[in-house]
Each structure stands twice: as C-alpha cells, then as structure tokens.
C-alpha cells in the first residue's frame, strides 16, 4: 500500500534523496533521506502519530507545516518531534507518542 505520487503532469516526482530505511514502532519502512518523516509514514499508510494526554485520542497530520504539533512523535528517543518539518535520516527509530511522553535516554 504505497501512497507515493507517481507520474505527474507537472511535477518531477522522481527527484528524491537516497533511499533509506527507518523503523516505526518496530517495523522497518522505506523512506527517502531529507523528506519530512511524516511523508515517509503517510507513504506507508501510517496515519496515527500520537495519542492525546487526557482522552487518549489518536491524532495525525493536520497542518503539515509545523504549526499544530498533531504529528509529534518520539524520534531517536526525543519526544515531541514535529514529523512534518523534521527530515528523515537513515536508520531513524520512530515511535508513536503517548501523551506528553518523557522520551528515552539515547
């Protein structure tokens, strides 16, 4: 289930960074270095990024430009990372964030 845009009348969608892998909640997915983490997740059909503090409700992409923080996740042990404005690096370990999360030591 890949949601990458292929063949576009206007855009050059083949211009991408090197193909790498990242781990999301223990599952290895493909990504392109330099693209927002969120884009890699969406391309693999991952649409839940975090759960809210009080009601434990799921949240996913909402603004896509770093303003709303609904796409925050734990990246390499660091919580509250806005995945829409944080670029992919090879081997990143990403986890769905539950509440505020204290993160983990690196």
């Amino acid at each position, binding site marked *: 289930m890949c949601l*990458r*845009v292929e063949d576009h009348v206007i855009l050059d969608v083949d211009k991408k960074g090197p193909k790498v892998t990242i781990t999301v909640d223990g599952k290895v997915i493909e990504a392109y270095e330099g693209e927002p983490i969120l884009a890699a997740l969406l391309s693999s059909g991952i649409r839940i990024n975090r759960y809210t503090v009080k009601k434990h409700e799921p*949240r*996913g992409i909402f*603004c896509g*430009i770093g303003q709303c923080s609904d796409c925050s996740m734990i990246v390499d042990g660091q919580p509250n990372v806005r995945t829409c404005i944080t670029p992919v690096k090879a081997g990143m370990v990403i986890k769905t964030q539950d509440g505020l999360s204290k993160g983990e030591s690196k």
Partner: protein
Amino acid sequence: MIENRDIVVVGAGPAGLAASIEAGRAGADVLLIDLNMKPGGQLFKQIHKFFGSSAHRSGTRGYDIGLQLLKEAEKAGVEIWLQSTVMGVFPGNLIGIEKGTDAGEKELVTLKAKKIIVATGASENVVRFKGWTIPGVMGAGAAQTMINVNHVRPGRKIVMLGSGNVGLIVSYQLMQAGCDVVALIEAAPKIGGYAVHAAKIRRAGVPIYTKHTIVEAIPGEDKTVSKVVIAEVDDKFQPIPGTEETIEADTVTIGAGLKPALDIVKLAKCDLTFNGPFGGFIPLHNEKMETSKEGIYAAGDATGVEEANTALEEGKIAGISAAESLGLISSDKAEAEREEIWKRLTALRMGPFGERRLKEKENVLHEYKEKIGAPSEWN
C-alpha cells in the same frame, strides 16, 4: 555577545523574500529566518499558473516564481537561516531564535536588529464537526503540501469541505496526484471561488454539494476516517434532520479560509484591528507597511490574507521602507518606488473579489492615520 543585524525578516514566503531582496539590494545586512526545511513559504505548492498581468508573472507557476526569488535573494546577499523559529521579540528589537530541528541539537540565539519585518503568513481555519480531530481530517493546505511538495498522497478517497479557490484548486491537484475526490461540500448556495477553477472540477465529474455541510467523520477499525456523513443546511447553515447522506472516504480536507499569523506582532504589542475580509485581526500599518511600533514592519498575509502577488508587492514596500529608514535609500527614491508599487497593488485588487480588498486596505491605512498617526518607540 549579541550579534547585531540591520534587518531581520521573519518568514521566507513571497513577502519575506521580496522584502529581503529589496533591502539586500539597497545594501542592508539582511537575515531571513524560516522554520521550514526549505524557503519559499507556500509558493512551492502552487503548481497552477498565476493570473494577472505580465508584470505579475501571469502564466508562471508558483514554484517557478519561488525559484526566481531564491536566486534573486542569493544575489542580493541575503543570509537565510532555515529550521529556525523566532521564539520571542523584546523591547529594543531583541529577537530570540531557536535554531535546529526538533530531533537534533537545538541552539538558542539572541540577535539585535535595527529593523524587523514580520512576514509570517497565515494559518488555516478549521470547521468543527463531530470527529474533526481524528486522523484523516486535515487542512486543505496540509494535503496540498503533501502531494505537491512531498509527493505523497494523504489518502485515497477525499471529501473536500469548502469551495473557495483553495478548495477548488486543491481538489484538482489531488486528482492530478492520483487521489479520488469523492465530494466537494459547500455550505453556501453557490461555489465560492473562480468559475475557471470550478469548471475543471465539474468536467472531472466530482459531485458538488452546495447548501451542504459535514455532520460527522466516522472512524473505522484503524481509528482513522472511514465514512463521512453530510447533510443539507438551512438558511442559517444548520443541518436539516433527515437529509443525511453517508459517503465512503478515508480523508477529509478543510478549505475554510485562512487567518493572519499574529504571534510576533502581538509579542511586539503592535496595535491590531479586526477586519473580516482580511481573515480576522491584523496589525494596523501605514503606506510604508510600518506597524504602530517604530522599526517593526509587516507584509503579506500577516497583514490580511490575500494572495502571493499582493504579498510580494507589500514585501517590496516593507524592504524599501526599512532600507530607507536606515539611510540606505533616499526618501525621494523610496517614495517614488512606493508610489509605483501601490499602483500595481491597486491593479491587483480589481474585479469582484479584489475591489472589496482594495477598499478594506484603504480603511486600514485610514484607521492608522486616525488612531496612530506616527509609529511610536517600543518600550
């Protein structure tokens, strides 16, 4: 030690880039700050051709305009800090900046600027229906960023809420990216945006529901959108019981307009005014784009939501005026250039949509004269 700068511009969209280019060309030491991974603001997601006259690059796609501006900024010697967020502004034009990504090491930097130009743009409005917070419901602009900038589809079957130009253009672009737009929902009795954009949607066979709204987005087993319930609305935009219809969809995109991003002008205690057609509260400003605070300028959507060309022109005015106040451009030259730009802005604010903005802009300038007169020092 605190670094000193002539001009710090916040926001690297069309207004901020244009301001930086003008000021840089005049010889000012310009630092342009943006929180995103790339400069250009929302220009790089505008893959349609622009309207207007050749002076306003009609027929050119937004991202080509973005590339041109980046080249010009480089030539003008503008320094750009990306992935940098302005955290605060303080009396004396001190600016606190966080540099670096959320995932990496962050550094806090404090700068002192002789002049600040606020070009922070706007954020999307939301419509609150049952289930509006579940994953799969997002801003139309968010969906547009995913397809046109990141080349990833936010979902497969889309319900678009709102038929203004954003709703219409993004619907079409979602189809170009390979998504299925299963419904376009509009509460008003008529489509809001330009007929030329609406015609493309109609030709593609997208069902358009005017006088309708979304009542609920229903999550599936995976906790993300799986069904969308719509209903007809009465003259007061209230859903009429019994008219509900359920649509299979995995994504809802909300194109309900934008509101100016005011965080920085509020921190600087700039005087605001409420203006509905411009999207809500905006900073009062004069014909130099200077706010009620001396040396703090604002331009683009941050002073009233319009479009990229008006943002560019306002940005130029802010850049020229800031350079003028630093003594880098003579007042005669600055005045002559401003006059030309205001003429072009009047030309842009034409037609049934533009004339109202032309009048509102005049009202804002008038209110500034009445209430503020001259900008005051920020203490």
